[in-house]
C-alpha cells in the first residue's frame, strides 16, 4: 500500500465520522491513499501537527492561528491550502430584541451581553475584540455572559450560540452575538421569531476553517489532495451529499488574508501567546 496522507479532524459532532469516511471513499476511488485521525479538541490536533503525527489538519480559524504561531516559533511554517466557499468573509452580528431600547453599542453600558464558547472565534473572541476596539470592555462597561458548550471545539458546535439566542428571547440577557448565517438559521428553526430581533452591530469580515498542512507534510501528496478536493463538483450526485454535510458548494484554494481580525483578538484577549502557548486561564478542553 502507498503511504497515505493522514489528516486530523476534530469530532465536534457524530456526523464528522460520516463526513470523513465519505471523503476517504472518494479519495480511494481516485486512487489516492488517505486516512484520518479524529481528535476531541483542536488544541491536541494542532500539537499533533507540530509533533508530525498528522500531515494535514482540518482546522478552525483559531487552530490555524495557533498552528501558525507554534510553527513560526520553531522556525517552521504551515500553509492554508484549501477552504470552503462558505468559509470566506463571514461576519458576526450583535442582536437585541426588537423591542429593546438599545440601538447602538453605547447602549450596552451596564447591560448583559451573551457570548458563545470561550474558544469560539465567531461568538467570543472576534466579538470581544470588536467591542474593545469601540472602547467597550467586558467586565468594565458591560457584563459578558458566556454560553460555554463543548470547549476545545472552537465554537464548531453552535449549541452555545443557540443557547444564547434562547436566553435573549427569554429576557435573561440584553444582547447576544452569533454568526450572520446563524441569525438566519435560528430564525428558520423558530428560536428567533421573525422580526423579533434586530441587528445593532456587525464585526468586520473574517475567514473560517481551512486545511492546514503540518510543517513537514509530504509536498506531492498535499498537492494531489488539494487537486482532488477542488475537483469535487456539486453537480456530481456521488459527492454532493458530502459537500452538503460539510456545508459547502465548492472548495477553494486556501488564503490567509482573512485571519487578521482573529489574530488581533487572540492577542488582545490573551488567548495564546506569540508562540502559541495557551494563556486563557479558564479554558478547559
Amino acid at each position, binding site marked *: 500500500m502507498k503511504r497515505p496522507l493522514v489528516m486530523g479532524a476534530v469530532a465536534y459532532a457524530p456526523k464528522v465520522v460520516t463526513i470523513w469516511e465519505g471523503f476517504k471513499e472518494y479519495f480511494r476511488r481516485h486512487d489516492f491513499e488517505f486516512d484520518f485521525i479524529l481528535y476531541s479538541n483542536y488544541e491536541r490536533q494542532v500539537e499533533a501537527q507540530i509533533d508530525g503525527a498528522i500531515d494535514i489538519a482540518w482546522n478552525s480559524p483559531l487552530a490555524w492561528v495557533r498552528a501558525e504561531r507554534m510553527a513560526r516559533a520553531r522556525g517552521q511554517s504551515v500553509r492554508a491550502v484549501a477552504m470552503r*466557499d462558505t468559509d470566506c468573509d463571514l*461576519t458576526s452580528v450583535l442582536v437585541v430584541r426588537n423591542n429593546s431600547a438599545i440601538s447602538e453599542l453605547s447602549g450596552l453600558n451596564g447591560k448583559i451581553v451573551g457570548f458563545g464558547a470561550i474558544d469560539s472565534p465567531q461568538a467570543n473572541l472576534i466579538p470581544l475584540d470588536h467591542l474593545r476596539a469601540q472602547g467597550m470592555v467586558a467586565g468594565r462597561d458591560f457584563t459578558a455572559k458566556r454560553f460555554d458548550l463543548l470547549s476545545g471545539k472552537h465554537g464548531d458546535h453552535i449549541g452555545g450560540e443557540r443557547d444564547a439566542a434562547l436566553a435573549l428571547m427569554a429576557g435573561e440577557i440584553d444582547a447576544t452575538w452569533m454568526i450572520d448565517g446563524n*441569525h*438566519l438559521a435560528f*430564525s428558520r428553526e423558530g428560536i428567533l421569531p421573525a422580526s423579533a430581533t*434586530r441587528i445593532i452591530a456587525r464585526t468586520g469580515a473574517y475567514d473560517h476553517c481551512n486545511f492546514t498542512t503540518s510543517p513537514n507534510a509530504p509536498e506531492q501528496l498535499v498537492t494531489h489532495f488539494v487537486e482532488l478536493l477542488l475537483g469535487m463538483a456539486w453537480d456530481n450526485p456521488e459527492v454532493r451529499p458530502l459537500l452538503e454535510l460539510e456545508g459547502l*458548494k465548492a472548495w477553494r484554494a486556501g488564503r490567509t488574508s482573512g485571519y487578521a481580525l482573529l489574530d488581533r483578538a487572540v492577542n488582545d484577549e490573551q488567548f495564546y501567546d506569540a508562540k502559541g502557548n495557551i494563556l486563557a486561564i479558564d479554558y478547559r478542553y
Partner: protein
Amino acid sequence: MTSNFTTQKEISLPSIIDIENLGLDAGAHLLIKHGLCGVSVGGEILVSGSAPGWEAQLAAWCRAQGHPLTFTDGKAHIIRSDIHAGRWRGATQTGHADLLQTGAVHEHALPCYGLAARGATVEAGAPEFAFRLNQKHEVWTDSAADLYAQAVAAQWNPELAIDWNAPFELADEVEDAVAQVMTYMIENENAALVVPARFLGQMHPHFREVQAVLAIQVADEARHIDVFTRRLRLHGREPALSTAGGQASLKTLLDEPDFSVAGFLLSVLGEGTFVSLLNFLHEHGPDPVTRQICRLAARDEARHVAFGMAHLLRRLEHEPEFRSRLAQAVETRNDTLSATAGLNEEVFDALILLAAGEFTPAAIATGYARVQTLMTDMAEGRLARLLRLGFEGKTAQRLAALHTRNFM
C-alpha cells in the same frame, strides 16, 4: 455613433428588488430568489433594503446559496450562480401524473424514483427503494383509477348504514349457526385483507392508481371484519370453530408471490365465489342485520372481483401464454389441498340452518335446497369468469370444478 446608441439600448439595466424593511429572518429571501429567477446564470440583480443589519443577513444568505455578492452605494449586487442548477443535472423524470399523457406510466419503475409523486423530477443520488413489484405489466390495470373512484364513492359507515337495533329473535340453534358462519367469513376476510396489504407494501408507488385500489380494498376488508364481528357479538356469542382445512386453503393464497396469480385465485375465483355467498345471505339470512351487512359487503366484493378481472384481462391480452400459468396455479392449489377436508362441515350445516331460519324438518328441507342452489350459482359464476378470461370451454369447466371447497 449609431452603433453606440444601439448598444446602449441593448443593455438592460439590472432589476432592483427593494425588500424595504423586511428582514431575511422574516422571509425577504423569497423576494430575492424571485428576482434571481428573472435573470439568467451570470446575470445580476440589485437589492436594496432598510431593515437593521439586512446587509449581514443578505451576505450570509448569498454565501450559503453560492451567489457572489458585492455592495456599492448602499445597494447589493448579486450575481446569479449556476450552482443550483447543478443539483438537477442528471435528474430523472418519472413519467406524468396525468394518465392521458404519453409515457405517463413507465414500463419499468426504477428504484430511484422512490416515493416521489409520479411525474416528479428526482435528484440524482436519491436513495433506491427495493419495491419488488416494479414492472407495469405485472400490476397495471387500465380501469384502476375509475374503480378507485367508485370505491371511494361507495364507502359506507357501519354505524349509519346498518340498523343494529332492528328487533329480531332467533332460535338458539340458528343464532349459533350465524356465529359459525360469521366466524368462517371473518377468517376469509382476514385473507382478503392480508393478501392485497402485502402486495401494497411491495408495489412501486409509481403505479399509484393500482396502489390506491389495493389500499381501499384493504380498508373494505377491515370494515367487513368489523361488521361480521359485531353481528357475531350482537347476541353475546363468541366466535365458533376454525378448521385446519379452511386455514390451509387460505394459506395457499398468502403463499402466492405473483400479483396476477394471487389476484386470480383470491379475487376472480375466491371473492367471486364469495359474492354468491353474500348474495345468498342477503336473500336468505335469518335476521335483518345479517341481511343488511351481507348486502353491503357483496357490493364491495363485486368491485374487488371487477378489479381482479380487469387486471387479468389486460395481462392476458399482452401475455396470452400467462393463461397456462393461471391454470397451473389452480391445479397446484388443488393438489396442495387434496389432503384437507375442504369446507368446514360446521359451516355447511350452519348455512343450511341459516337458510332454514328455524329448527323444523320442513324449514331444513328448504334450507338444504337453497344451499344446493348456492353451490350451483357459485360454480356457474366461476365458469363464466373463466370463460371471460379466455379459457377454452373444457379447461374452464375443469378449473371451475377444481376450485377449493372452502369457497375462498
